[in-house]
């Protein structure tokens, strides 16, 4: 259709121009309206002054699909500083990404890693960490990574088109990719988007164009990706908000001693490569949900003085988990010292949601310690009944090392007995397993959370009511005290669609208000403590945006169009002059100056 029109209009004189016009016309075909996609930016943060992540937000460049559009035209591939690469994560080659982000020299990679570990071990060597930026081998205009729809928090149900949970392979790729991106310093914008029909169509088109060896620039036309985002600004005084709820125990008349306290703690915030997508369903949404359910069950028991235990219960939802449990540290220091001294022991919940029948109790006191033995036996006996295996893991704390891998370590540093219940067998590294891209709704299993919640609640109840070792089921299924799966499901659903990166949560964020209200429903005295995050971390805003994809025609096309129109108007003019005034008039139009000269003479 387009071709017939162009051939009807174009003056046959310009034969080569026709050929070029037809080629250009064939390329710039009729298209749909502009596509608009929600995209999420890679995190941008400074760790003790060292910048990490993507340092720019605004994007306005042409799209390409690979670095090496055609090896013959490799010269043209050199200038990619004005191109945005669109890479689907499905087809990602990690060595390619590594090359993209870091210099090819693997030793330089190792050097950088060693420096980081050095810093973590010796905080006074901060000034030595004037690490030179790794020169990126290929400066780009931008990077757009396409994730499968399965990982989209808005995609409720968490299944892809075929109805399957995502393959393990792609989760591993995502984990590696995330690790790479978080620890790189990237001077161009990096965005995450989800595959959908529009974007896939655009990508297929871009691939087709790239295959012809023609890089999309202003002179050749193609697709342009635009994200209008303001320059990212530092977030001033990011707050961490700790929410605590208090269930007082039964104090017998005449008893002036303080009742002992048991604390149940879970950190609710996350960190990931894309703060707009860090929903952390397993790490630590599962912990939060279990904590709320335990609070609900105990509030039922404690509402009646006849069933109220002789222990106070303290429930805490802490923030700042990924940053060496900074929030927990501040919360503990904010607690009244006498209250802290009454804490018998504390159970921290961290990632208890995936489909595994094995949980670990991590402690920092040696396992021979009588108290630890007692707690562990309490857990084991309940876990046997539930069909879960619980193992005991011991990790000594190194006081001089600022790295805090488990939440219970913050308690242990203040001489409070504590343990962490987790499905992870080894301590996660810094900024790992804290709710990244692959940690979405489909990586959690409700039944596991139900079982884990029951495990903790039952163990605590048996300890509180002194029923250890006895064959009694406090929270029996099908009783009024059974663990409620729909409660767990609805809270898990809510948490799986809410990104929870602490610096981006304001003091009155709806999430914090919701958690506070829920604890108020179950416990007596709820307090929210707002603290400023450790100064070592600086975050920058602008975590999400809207990507506009335009199909642009080249300047060449418009020049050709101008040529065609010019010739058309000239033809029209000549035609009209000839038909209305005669051919002589047309010729006289051009001869007028010379005829005047003749007359003058």
């Amino acid at each position, binding site marked *: 259709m387009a071709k017939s029109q162009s051939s009807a209009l174009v003056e046959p004189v310009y034969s080569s121009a026709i050929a070029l016009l037809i080629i250009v016309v064939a390329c710039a075909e009729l298209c749909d309206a502009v596509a608009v996609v929600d995209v999420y930016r890679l995190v941008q943060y400074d760790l003790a002054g060292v910048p990490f992540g993507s340092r720019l937000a605004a994007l306005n460049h042409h799209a390409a699909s690979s670095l090496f559009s055609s090896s013959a035209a490799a010269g043209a591939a050199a200038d990619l500083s004005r191109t945005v690469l669109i890479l689907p994560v499905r087809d990602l080659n990690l060595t390619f990404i590594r090359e993209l982000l870091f210099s090819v020299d693997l030793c330089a990679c190792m050097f950088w890693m060693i420096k980081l570990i050095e810093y973590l071990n010796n905080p006074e060597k901060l000034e030595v960490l004037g690490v030179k930026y790794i020169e990126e081998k290929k400066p780009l205009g931008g990077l757009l990574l396409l994730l499968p729809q399965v990982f989209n928090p808005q995609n409720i149900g968490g299944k892809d088109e075929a109805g399957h949970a995502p393959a393990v392979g792609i989760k591993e790729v995502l984990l590696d990719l995330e690790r790479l991106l978080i620890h790189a310093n990237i001077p161009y914008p990096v965005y995450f988007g989800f595959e959908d029909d529009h974007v896939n169509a655009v990508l297929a088109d871009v691939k087709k164009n790239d295959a012809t060896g023609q890089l999309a620039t202003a002179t050749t036309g193609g697709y342009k990706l*635009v994200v209008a985002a303001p320059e990212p600004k530092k977030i001033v005084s990011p707050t961490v908000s700790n929410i605590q709820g208090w269930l007082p125990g039964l104090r017998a008349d005449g008893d002036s001693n303080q009742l002992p306290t048991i604390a149940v703690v879970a950190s609710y915030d996350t960190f990931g490569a894309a703060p707009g997508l860090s929903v952390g369903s397993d790490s630590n949404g599962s912990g939060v949900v279990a904590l709320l359910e335990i609070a609900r069950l105990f509030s039922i028991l404690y509402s009646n003085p006849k069933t109220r235990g002789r222990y106070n219960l303290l429930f805490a939802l802490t923030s700042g988990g990924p940053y060496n449990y900074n929030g927990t540290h501040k919360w503990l220091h904010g607690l009244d010292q006498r209250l802290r001294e009454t804490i018998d022991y504390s159970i921290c919940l961290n990632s208890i949601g995936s489909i595994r029948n094995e949980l670990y109790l991590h402690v920092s006191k040696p396992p021979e310690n009588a108290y630890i033995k007692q707690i562990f036996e309490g857990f084991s006996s309940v876990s046997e009944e539930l069909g879960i295996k619980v193992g005991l893991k011991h990790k000594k704390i190194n006081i001089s090392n600022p790295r805090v891998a488990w939440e219970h370590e913050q308690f242990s540093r203040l001489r409070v007995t504590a343990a962490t219940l987790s499905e992870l067998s080894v301590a996660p590294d810094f900024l790992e397993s804290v709710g990244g891209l692959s940690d979405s709704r489909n990586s959690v299993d409700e039944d596991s959370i139900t079982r884990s919640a029951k495990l903790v609640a039952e163990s605590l109840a048996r300890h509180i009511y002194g029923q250890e070792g006895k064959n009694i089921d406090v929270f029996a299924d099908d009783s009024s005290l059974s663990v409620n799966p729909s409660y767990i499901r609805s809270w898990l659903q809510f948490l799986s669609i809410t990104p929870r990166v602490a610096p981006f949560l304001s003091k009155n964020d709806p999430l914090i208000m919701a958690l506070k209200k829920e604890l108020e429903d179950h416990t007596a005295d709820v307090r929210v403590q707002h603290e400023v995050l450790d100064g070592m971390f600086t975050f920058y805003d602008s975590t999400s945006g809207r990507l506009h994809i335009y199909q*642009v*025609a080249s*300047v060449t096309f418009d020049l050709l169009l*101008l040529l065609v129109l010019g010739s058309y108007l000239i033809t029209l003019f000549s035609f*009209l002059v000839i038909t209305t005034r005669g051919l002589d008039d047309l010729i006289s139009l051009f001869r007028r100056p010379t005829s005047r000269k003749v007359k003058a003479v």
Partner: protein
Amino acid sequence: MTIFHFFNCAILTFGPHAVYYSATPLSEYDTIGTSIKSAVVYLVTALVKLVCLATFLKVSESDSFDPYQELLKALIGFIDVAGLYFALTQLTHRNISQNHKFQAVGLGWAFADSILHRLAPLWVGARGLEFTWDYILQGLEANANLVLSISLAALGSLIWLRKNKPKTLIPIIYACAGIVATMPSITSYLKLALGWHFPKVVGFELFTSLVMAFISWQLFAACQRPSNRE
């Protein structure tokens, strides 16, 4: 690129009018006053049509072809013809021959039509980053419209201004005038009922406008011959 594209489409839409004026003897006889007057008459006619459409027409959500609505639209379209009649006969023109009068009126009519219907979309849309063929097609439509307007003006002047016409040609004249006057209804029928795409519709318009122009030219020449003989 985008302002450039706007410039190109503007040339395509409004250029032919300027070219027509300067190429034909219209510019020699300085008939710009007539054109401007007919443009004003067009604007008034458009306003009247708008009011009638708003009063009588139902807004239908679906994009289908409703015969009753289209009939109503066609009837209101005849207000166009009435406006053209007014412009041809009632306005006081300077001493211009009939030959040039209908051309000037047709030109002014078409120019006002293009400005009213095509300038705003062009300004708003062609300057964006996204490229579509729509504005080029719209420009072609404007060209077709110019030819159709001049043909209609020619036929109109034949009907109302020329008193002695050969008897045999009269029904043909009226038939052609009817076809040209109902062109909008025909195009909307093609678009909605038959589902033709925009490029196809524009092609059809161009073709019919050229055919109609040829026919009305022949009719005009035929009617001129008897008066020349006298």
